């Protein structure tokens, strides 16, 4: 697993490919390389195909083999933009909380429907959380299983009516999605038949 590799050094901007000791092939543009720690950072096209996003891979060269420099670039890399660290820190905190929140709900045995509803509500109302199996929205509305519109309870008011609308729309969209899928399936069948 040593990291032989043609290069003891990688210049920023060059494209390389390599195999990890776990058999995973990695390829990307070198954006950073630390000789001391033998760490290499690659920037790759997003695995999800989104144009504005990238996958960033930190590679421990100690566990990599067959390092290939696809093309080398000697140009001086562009200057680094300054980062808003607080923004990043906030993101990290938010991501963590979201993940823990979801995990909490899942571990509480919430149904898939409930999880989906939570995700939907969370898109529009950040202030929602799990309390056991209940979804608490804005500390005012409680949605208990099975998470139907009639399960929304709380003080009558804008919040409750709004949440109800969201829940209602959520399930309506779910329905339409299913029908869409069916229709699409049918459509594809038709197409296939036609084409055939």
């Amino acid at each position: 697993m040593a990291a032989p590799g043609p290069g003891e050094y990688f210049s920023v901007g060059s494209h390389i490919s390599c195999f990890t000791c776990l058999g995973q092939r990695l390829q990307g543009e070198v954006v950073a390389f630390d000789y001391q720690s033998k760490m290499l950072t690659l920037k790759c096209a997003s695995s999800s195909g989104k144009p504005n996003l990238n996958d960033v891979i930190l590679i421990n060269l100690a566990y990599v083999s067959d390092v290939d420099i696809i093309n080398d670039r000697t140009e001086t890399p562009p200057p680094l933009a300054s980062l808003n660290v607080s923004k990043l820190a906030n993101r990290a905190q938010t991501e963590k909380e979201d993940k823990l929140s979801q995990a909490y709900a899942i571990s509480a045995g919430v149904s898939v429907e409930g999880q989906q509803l939570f995700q939907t509500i969370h898109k529009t109302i950040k202030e929602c959380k799990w309390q056991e199996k209940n979804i608490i929205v804005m500390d005012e509305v409680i949605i208990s299983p099975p998470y139907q519109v009639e399960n929304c309870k709380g003080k009558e008011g804008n919040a409750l009516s709004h949440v109800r609308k969201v829940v209602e729309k959520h399930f309506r969209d779910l329905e339409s999605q299913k029908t869409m899928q069916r229709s699409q399936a049918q459509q594809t069948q038709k197409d296939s038949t036609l084409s055939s």
Partner: protein
Amino acid sequence: MLKQPQQPGSGGRKASNGTTGPAGVSSSVSGMNSGNRTPAGRNRSSAKPSFQSSPVFEGVYNNARMLHFLTAVVGSTCDIRVKNGSMFEGVFKTLSSRCELAVDAVHKRSEDESSTSAQPRWEDITDTMIFSPSDLVTMICRDVDLNYATKDTFTDTAISSTRVNGEHKEKVLQRWEGGDSNGESYNLENDASNGWDANEMFRYNEVKYGVTSTYDSSLSMYTVPLERGNNDNYRQREARAARLASEIESSPQYRHRVNLENDDGKSEEEKYSAVVRDGNDRERGRESPRDRERERGRDSPGANNREGKYIPLPQRQREMNRERAERGSGGPPPHNRLSGGYRSTPPSSSSSSPRPPLPSAAGPQPGASTSERSSPLSGRGGAYTPHHPQGSPSPGPASGPASPYTPASPAGPAATGTSASAAQSPASPPAPHGHTVPHSHSLPHSLSDAGRPVNGVSARTSPKAQRPPQSSRTVRTANTHNQSTATRSPKSATSQDTPYLDTSSVSLPAGKTSGPTPLFMVDVNEILGAAAKRSAESPSSTEDSKSNKVPSVQQRTQIEELRKFGKEFRLQASGGSSSSPSSPAAATPPAVSEVDQPNAAKPSSDASAEAKPLPPAPSPSQPQPQPSPAPAEDPAKETASTPGAPTAASTTAPVSDRQSPAVPQPARTPGSEDARSDTAERTEGVADQVKKSTLNPNAKEFNPIKPQMPMTKPNTAPTPPRPTPNAVVLPHPGGQGPLYNTPYLSYVSQIHSVQPPPMFQYSMSTVSQGKYQRTKGSVVAQRSDHGNSAPPMLQAAASAAGAPLVASPYPQSYLQYNPQQYGQQQVIQTMTPYPGQPMYPMLQGGARMIGQGGGPHPQALGPPGGPQFPTQGDGQQGPQQGIYAPQSFSHHSGAVHQPQPSSTPTGNQPPPQHAAPSPGQNAQSGPQPQSLYHSGPLSAPTPPNMPPGHTSPQGSYPIQGYSIHSHQGIPPSYPLGQIAQAHVQGAMSGPHHSGSHGQPQLLMLQPPQQGPGSVPQHPQHGPQQGGHQHFYIGHPQAMQVQTHPASFHPPGN
């Protein structure tokens, strides 16, 4: 595959699971792992080490690119593979210098799951895990937006801020030289077309590429044409559609959302501008067109820069008001002044905006920076003070207070440096502004304006935020001024806290600017061109700048600061650095200039010129002009300062908090009593100034030394006021130290009393000071100039105030005032001394210091001061005193220990000069600088507390001193003395307070010993000298004080 259990194989976990017990998590984790996994890893605690262990860049932290990209993925979801093959998913949190990765909310993923399909259960999530690089194979962060945290690079702030990953680069902004034609062919207003017409594009493509469009405007390929029917059904539907459309479009919700969607243009800009400081810029911009126009424009850039810094709303509003006022009243007159003083300023202003373009511009900036520095040091209060001073100028009667300004002279040392460097006057004003960026800005403007206004209307000065009040005040009377200052101070006080922070930041920049000092030189040169005096000063400034340059590291910061200063300076220039706020040194010159201005428009210009020249010839000239104007400013400052002293005690707390408060206090003091005394002093000051002019040469000499001080430059600005004190201090070191020390103690106590609240501020200031320190070096150089200038200032003040009060009041007033003022001033001075400490070396080098220090103080001043201090300080200041003392001490110690001493020398030089010329002058100079500083700082803070306060000057001094000290002294102290000081502080502080009082008297006595020759002078100077003595005393105590400083530093740190 290592299955080695423990290791890090998988990575250590931090025990803390969010909710679930760690054990549970670990178990789950272990379970997750094939068993081979590295259970052990879980328990690791390496995470902490990673972060904490690398304060100093090491390991991966040295790799900027690696750090950048790994930082850019913070907060994104990452998949981590460890060498045993297991995979973990979590939120990347951070990495250590050893490339240990800290990941939050980690759960182990089964090998199969390529996607995140399976949601982890709560029990499966580990709150934080740290992966050792030895276990890590890959970390993949998917779908990362690398631009997520990229700061916007298109705001003024972003463009001007050159910090990249902690790296400070100087970015020179270039002035847009597009010529007069603003894109003649580019009339946005007339071009109503919204981009290319579709048909145009089709035609173009057809001609150029031979592509023929199949576009059909009916879009028949995409939709079905609407079939209009005439039947009722259709009409009904049409009507309904129209009704619905109108309903929707008329709903507020719809409008709101449409606005959200379409307002990104202006609204966004407005948002940011509003949040930041565009307001000022805008205002300035407006103003520039109207009145000051080009000059203003330049200034405005500076203002913008300043604006770049956060300006508290209150300040902004004030500035706005001031500006408006200025605009209204000052329009034309300003020009005249501008012609004289402004020219100098313009460069600065231009420089500020153009920073990049010209050194000359830079020069001004540096000056500004220095001033800013000083201001920073002094805190916004300093800036405030400037304003106050301005206001005070009108008070002319207050001229007596002007003498207090002399304290400004202390600033002068520093300020002188600044003032000398860039049209000191402008610069100095800026400096004050610096802290209170807004204030400073306004101050400069106000100063300039004020000066102009004075000529034309006092109101003008006020226009700028602070000015307005001031102007009115100034116009009214010294007393009124004091009040106004007081009132201002409140504002400042309110804002001060924030301002302080800002100032601190500013101060930092100022420190950086020190590097730019050269720019100042350029400005100075310009100024020189304006007046030979200036030329004389300029040399010193140049020297200073050079010296400053020497310290490369500091230079950067200094440069930045200088830039800021430059901006500020511009303002100051316009404002008439005289505003003294800039800091004693700058302030003094400015004050002088202001004073002069008040007298006559020309004077103002002269004043600006004088500010620089002040040291040598300028001072003489200034004195004359100053007499009338100076009185006003000086009075204001002094009044402020003096009030500060008395009030300081009461207000001290506020002041201390505000930092600037100290300044306010000074302002206060000057207000009533000081003003008169100041007048007397001023008379003396004039004579002194003449002498000082001679002194200037010395200052220049010192400048060479200053180079070392670069660090202190920022301090210098502040120090300038202190310089004299410093000078005094230096002497002390030489011999009288002990005696002086006692004074210091007393002063300290006083200061403390005033500053108690300020302590926090101080800490802030101290922090900034660190930065300042760098600048200080340059400042010091300036200081030397300032010292000269300070004398002028003093003289001016004396002349101004002197005429009325001088003859009789002098001694008495001094004595009386001295106690308070001196007490404060002294305190400040002590503080300054610290900053000055650097100067000390200088002083030591020159006998002058000793002479001054010894001469005056001790006897007359010492005793009074001591007692007063106790009274004032003890009650309120008790706690604070300790703090203050620390600062002062820190300065001393810092200065002594550190380079600052060298810088101080410059300051010392001035003092020596003073001493040589005339004791009285020296004393005055000393006090004035201080007063200036104080006034500046005090004005800001104190005003609220001490508005009327007699001691305001003193109060201001303390504050200023603190600020200064903190800036100048602190930085130095940090390295060397701070720690030591810190230790000492505890003990020292106590002693200082209690002992200081007692000691002060002793000190007083001692001073005579030291400065037999000067003694005669000292008597007069008594108060001032007393301060010096204190310094001297301080030395011994200084050690103790230093300890205090340490304490201070801590806060600052």
